[in-house]
């Protein structure tokens, strides 16, 4: 897979734009997911994911081909997410939290329209509380938790993506995990 990506990157650098489509295809779900869990709504997730790929394309020549492409791409995307979280004004933040529960609207719609088995409703509710608690985490804990448990990346990769020492990443994961435990232990 890395070999295929490297080959496509070389083609893109030569100017073959079409070769980039495959790269987008491979990482689009992961990057979109990162945006959704970091920002809490689909619209912003799509926005940020698009921007991440466009930035990767525009800056592809500055990508060090000895490194893993995904690490570089995740770094671009995570930075965009963190920037956006920091720029959010308090009232907008509240907005995002409300729209961040768009699964909940889905849940209420589903509940009224089609009778779902009890179990699935429960799991939708659970999904909602988990998403809400992740969004409540301060951005520095949120990013490590999302990268570790949603994107399932290794601590080393996370440290490279965030450009932080491994020890700092661990401390943040511990704090994030503790905060989530406090909130989610009774769900």
């Amino acid at each position, binding site marked *: 897979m890395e070999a295929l990506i490297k080959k496509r990157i070389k083609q893109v650098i*030569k*100017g*073959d*734009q*079409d070769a*980039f*489509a495959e790269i*987008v*295809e491979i990482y*689009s*779900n992961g*990057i*979109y*997911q990162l945006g*959704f*869990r970091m920002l809490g709504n*689909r619209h912003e*997730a*799509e926005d940020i*994911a*698009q921007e991440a*790929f*466009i930035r990767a*394309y*525009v800056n592809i020549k500055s990508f060090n081909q000895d490194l893993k492409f995904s690490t570089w791409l995740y770094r671009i995307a995570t930075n965009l997410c963190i920037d956006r979280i920091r720029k959010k004004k308090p009232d907008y933040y509240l907005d995002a939290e409300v729209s961040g529960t768009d699964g909940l609207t889905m849940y209420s719609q589903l509940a009224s329209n089609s009778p779902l088995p009890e179990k699935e409703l429960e799991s939708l509710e*659970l*999904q909602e509380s*988990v*998403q809400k608690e*992740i969004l409540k985490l301060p951005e520095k804990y949120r990013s490590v*938790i999302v990268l570790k*448990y*949603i994107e*399932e990346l290794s*601590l080393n990769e996370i440290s490279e993506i965030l450009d932080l020492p491994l020890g700092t990443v*661990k401390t943040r*994961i*511990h704090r994030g*995990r503790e905060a*989530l*435990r406090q909130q*989610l*232990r009774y*769900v």
Partner: protein
Amino acid sequence: MKCDEEIVELMHEYLDDEIEPQNEMILRDHLKSCKECETIFNEFKKTIAVVKGTSRMQSPPNFTAKVMASLPKERKKVGMQRWLRNHPLIAAASLFLVLMTGSVFSTWNQEREFSVSKQENLVIQNDTVIVPEGEVVKGDVVVRNGVLKIEGEVQGDVTIINGEKYLASAGHVTGQIEEVNEVFDWIWYHMKRIAFEVVDIFNEGEE
């Protein structure tokens, strides 16, 4: 009883898959004997399970196409290379016709003189052609070996061969703008014209 922070630290090490074997023994022994820590440990494991268990999102339909459409335009030559690759027969046929009919190379070398298509409201100053502001020039404008300044409107295609163009902010071209600046482009320009005539499927490969 309040347990040592160290035990929670060991839990984190365990959860990060980084615990030393002897520490894992200490942790296990402690959890067997301490209800409080066992509860915390189980809460951690449950928390991780529910976070990992959130459903995986799919990027929206057409996401890739949208990204591809928002990328800055690629350079012309690669577009041409891809077109050649995808249409080798038409390309070969066009090239053959180019070489048969027009002596492309000699025309490239000979046609070094300034020339411009004839439209009456074009303003010509030495080697510079101006589409004046407020004027509408009808038909395709072709400038060879000169500079084209577009301040008004061109209703048609613009082709600049071995020259430069400046499009003012008020300037507007309804058709396509094409610049031909190298022998390579020059052949390409001829091939495209012939390809257009040979088959009418020429709609990719260009920019």
